[in-house]
């Protein structure tokens, strides 16, 4: 921490020298923002609009790549060059907040007239929370649900207005819809050995009463057994093991899978590519009346604890939040808020799907939050893959994962 301490001392020294000069000339305060948003995505556009307001705060933007967000942020923070504001993926949030790298915003949020915690979906809000305090503000959110091909449902004698609601119904439907002669699998999803696999599996475990901290519970084992049966019976492509969600859903769009589990980020592509009637329904549950659950994705805003202008940085965040109603209309992302209605797009299939996704968001749960989430996630991915390739039984695989996770949780 040597370098950091010097850097902070240096920063203080610099600040104490330059502060009087700054206030005398009423110079703008500069706030730096890092996120992975491209030019057509929210951050750079909101910043442009904010800078036009001439509030005495000037915001500088830097785009970082998805894979670099954490390592770049960490390097910057440990060498004392962190930005004021950053957008991080929600499962990584706790890594920073637990170590005090992010500023505790609880008091500022309590005083704020713009940011109100009761406006947010519980899942995204939980992901910025660490030990009862808020260390960030959800930026946007997404979740997963079940897409299904209505034309294929009709062709196989299934009611297209009654998509599967339980795991058994899902299996039944997948069996009926699978048609090897026509190159059609019943279901497409992702069990890839990266965060996507965890993202897709955890909701199943949670619906059956499991969770990352009780991953070898009876329900979670049952969930993995169902996954295994889907693959063993060839109701889904064996490539499910190495294919991400985007590629899996691609096979749904091309008519090679009758159902697909994925998120709202697929909508625009599906509207363009899918030459059939489709719908979206909530993720099937273990049995009627069981607890619902889903995954929760997307990024959160946070202010680094090292920021020299936390008040101003929070003002910038307040501005971002005040523009949340543009999130979907202008940028196609779902705001993490339950008080903002998604405006109709004029595309009936998309509007119907969005309604389902917004409903599903109520049940979305964050991954963690835990500072060592990547290790927990890795244990879960290993278990999924060990079971699905038949190298271990679901129970053995999840027991092993539980052991690894226990070591992480301490």
């Amino acid at each position, binding site marked *: 921490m040597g370098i950091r301490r010097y850097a902070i001392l240096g920063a203080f020294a610099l600040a104490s020298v330059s502060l009087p000069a700054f206030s005398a000339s009423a110079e703008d305060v500069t706030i730096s923002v890092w996120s992975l948003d491209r030019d057509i995505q929210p951050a750079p556009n909101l910043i442009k609009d904010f800078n036009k307001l001439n509030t005495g705060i000037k915001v500088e933007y830097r785009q970082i790549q998805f894979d670099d967000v954490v390592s770049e942020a960490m390097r910057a923070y440990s060498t004392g060059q962190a930005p004021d504001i950053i957008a991080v993926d929600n499962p990584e949030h706790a890594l920073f907040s637990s170590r005090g790298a992010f500023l505790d915003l609880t008091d500022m949020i309590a005083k704020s007239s713009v940011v109100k915690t009761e406006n947010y979906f519980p899942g995204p809000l939980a992901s910025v929370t660490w030990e009862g305090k808020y260390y960030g503000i959800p930026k946007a959110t997404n979740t997963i649900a079940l897409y299904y091909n209505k034309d294929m449902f009709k062709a196989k004698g299934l009611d297209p207005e009654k998509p599967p609601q339980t795991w058994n119904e899902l299996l039944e439907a997948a069996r009926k819809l699978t048609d090897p002669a026509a190159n059609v699998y019943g279901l497409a999803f992702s069990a890839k050995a990266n965060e996507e696999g965890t993202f897709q599996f955890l909701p199943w475990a949670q619906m059956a009463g499991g969770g990352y901290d009780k991953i070898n519970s009876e329900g979670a084992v049952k969930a993995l057994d169902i996954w295994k049966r889907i693959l063993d019976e060839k109701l889904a492509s*064996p490539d499910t093991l190495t294919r991400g969600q985007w590629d899996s859903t691609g096979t749904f769009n091309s008519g090679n899978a009758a159902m697909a589990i994925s998120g709202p980020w697929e909508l625009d592509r599906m509207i363009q590519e899918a030459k059939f009637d489709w719908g979206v329904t909530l993720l099937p549950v273990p049995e009627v009346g069981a607890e619902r659950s889903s995954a929760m994705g997307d990024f959160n805003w946070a202010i680094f604890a090292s920021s020299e202008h936390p008040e101003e940085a929070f003002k910038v965040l307040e501005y971002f939040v005040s523009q949340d109603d543009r999130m979907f209309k202008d940028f196609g992302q779902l705001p993490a808020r339950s008080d903002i209605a998604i405006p109709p797009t004029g595309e009936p299939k998309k509007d119907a799907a969005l309604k389902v996704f917004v409903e599903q968001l109520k049940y979305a749960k964050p991954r963690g939050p835990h500072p060592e989430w990547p290790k927990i996630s890795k244990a879960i991915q290993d278990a999924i893959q060990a079971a699905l390739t038949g190298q271990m039984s679901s129970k053995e695989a999840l027991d092993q994962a539980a052991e690894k996770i226990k070591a992480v949780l301490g």
Partner: protein
Amino acid sequence: MKRILASVTDGKGFDIGLVLLPLAFLFIMSGLPLVYNVVMSFQEVDMFSLGSFVRPFVGFKNYVDLFSQPETRPILLNTALFVSSSIAGQFLIGFGLALFFWMNFPGASWLRGLFLVSWVMPGLVVGAIWNWILSGDFGVLNFLLRETGVIEGNIFWRSDPNYSLWAVIIANIWLGTSFNMILLSVGLSGIPKDLYEAAELDGANALQRFFTITLPMMRSTIGAIIALGLIFTLQQFDLFAGITSGGPNNSSNVTQYWAWDLSFRQYDFAKGATISVIMIVFVMLASVVYVRSTRHEVRG
């Protein structure tokens, strides 16, 4: 004073200067990171202590932890299989092609040049394309094998633990063959033609000429290519990222991909460094063998 100056401009001092300059460069550009990496493997490192050099010393804990993990052994074996099969495949096919184009039929040099296209392509692009070719349901490779009657059902190259490592090996052989071919072609054209004429006059047949002239004359080239091949295959990362991501269940995971996964996915930098150190040891051993095997030729 004058003597020292004279020695620097023309003499021993000049020679030492010539040696020191590249040595200093080597030390700064490769030596320091290497040392840093080794030191890191004996420390407890996390994201927040990345910026400083002084970190808790943990002795061999990282090594012990690493070797007690169940996936370590299979991954090391995978690496050995990947490196040996890739080098063997790249070298044999490359040598075959080099000999073929050496026959100098019309258009040979053009075709040889075109082969280099595969070498010019970025690894991630190659990975993405092979990802499609090897796809289980709609892959071109499966289609070809099925149509020619080699296989009955589709092989899930990327997702079947029995095939996933071979999927990456096939792609890597394709990627590295042309480079082998070009270097070997250069080696072949360096062999004096009169040797062959003399051998032919003495009644040596093609096979004898190959084993008594071509192979011995190519010894240093072959040594260099195998050493380079070892380095390139141990560096091969993009294909794993593009095709299998080390899956399913680590069946196609190798040390270089694993080191990255540990460091930058799980933020376990110490373990990532530990694996790199193990890899360094292997590369060192290989380079000793390489230097010893080509020393004779280098001195002429």
